[in-house]
């Protein structure tokens, strides 16, 4: 069962010119967003991207970028109330 969510993957971008085809992004992405086509990474399922940031952090040549953060409503509401950026600060009571 594949789950989808609105605006998923909207901040993910790939600069094919920098990509060395090392496959790291394929290895780390938990939602099979990438595939290697002709020795270069390609985004094949953007709508499944949850913007976890794993691919961009592990792409050595810096071909990938994504605005990552927590997809947790409680964190976002806390962020709105405290005026800070959303973070998982539920002192280990959630995950």
């Amino acid at each position, binding site marked *: 069962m594949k789950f989808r969510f609105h605006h998923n993957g909207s901040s993910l971008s790939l600069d094919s010119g920098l990509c060395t085809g090392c496959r790291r992004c394929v*290895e780390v992405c938990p939602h099979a967003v990438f595939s290697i086509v002709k020795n270069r990474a390609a985004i094949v399922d953007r709508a499944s991207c949850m913007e976890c940031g794993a691919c961009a952090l592990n792409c050595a040549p810096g071909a990938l970028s994504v605005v990552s953060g927590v997809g947790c409503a409680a964190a976002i509401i806390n962020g709105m109330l405290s005026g800070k950026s959303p973070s998982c600060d539920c002192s280990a009571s*959630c995950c």
Partner: protein
Amino acid sequence: MLQALNKESLPIPYHQIAMNHCNCPGQHAPNPPDACPAPRLKEDPAPPSGLDFGVITGWEPLNTIASPMVANEHVSFRERLRNLSVRWAYKRHNHRITPGLYSFGAPDGTSPVLVTANYKLTFDKLRSHLSGLQLWILVLDTKGINVWCAAGKGTFGTNELVNRIRSTGLARLVTHRTLILPQLGAPGVAAQTVEKETGFRIKYGPVYARDIPRYLANGMRKTGEMRTVHFTLMERLSVVPVEMIHALRLLIPAILVALLLGFTKPESPIAYPLIVIPGCLLIGTFLFAALLPYLPSRAFSSRGAILGVLWSALVAWLTHTPMSSAWPSALIATSICAYLAMNFTGCSTFTSQKGTEIEVRLSLPWILSGIFAGVLLPVILTILL
């Protein structure tokens, strides 16, 4: 020759590890494990020791290297009970083990090294799937948080990993230079930086611990299936208890509101608000988690609202409550369901921050006005009429 060399350069005699004996300083014969004090790491003056559970045997630090602790695959009945209670948020915060290096089975200098978090639930899950294997487990200090969440917070991160590799002297213990990390640790670790700093190459292993034996047997190659995270019925239900405990905070206000509504409309059955409003705490957590993939709409809150409407209608039908007196309670119940459902985004495995933020901005005004309207309108109407 290589074997002999390895043995010489190794700080810890392997046969003793294999026999589950420790090498206390000043003693020539191996001691039974119980005679050894639990390992103490500098940054963690009184770590919650695995010894309580009778599983992890302590090792005295040898030279400057913190020597490996020993773990096996048996998770006792008591530990299972404890893990279950943690799922219900009971004493959740200190369910952790001592970070550092553990030996599993009878590993040697060529055995694979797995890296994991120091959340006891995570560690127990991992070791219960490793039966028959010989390996090293490097446990990072993630403050008792699971790998994925800790990676998101950065505690399962590049710095902690680099420091832990150094402080355990891993490079002197194994001859190879490969670490196997859980794939879901990747949002916190920059593999290329770890390699530059320590010389260890990182391979991201399978998402689920149960695939590790197959992954190792397969020459450390993942199938597409091993790479993909799921959100199966069982996984969804396993996070429900914590959500329910959180929702319990709403129970008393919910009952008070229900009583208030019951008294403002004395001619209608008080049973209706008393069933619908507190009941929606269960509907918005348990039933929502179970039915998540089958509800229409992409937004969590509207999926929850659909459940809330159906629930209110069902109870109205069962208690023969007419629409004219059911609507305030139904409105409140629907709003609470939408709210609880929206909170489930934090437990899910596929929501982005951007999407969740938009959802919160769009839904919260509706949810709040629903609750206010449900509480205030009947009161105002009673006063006016």
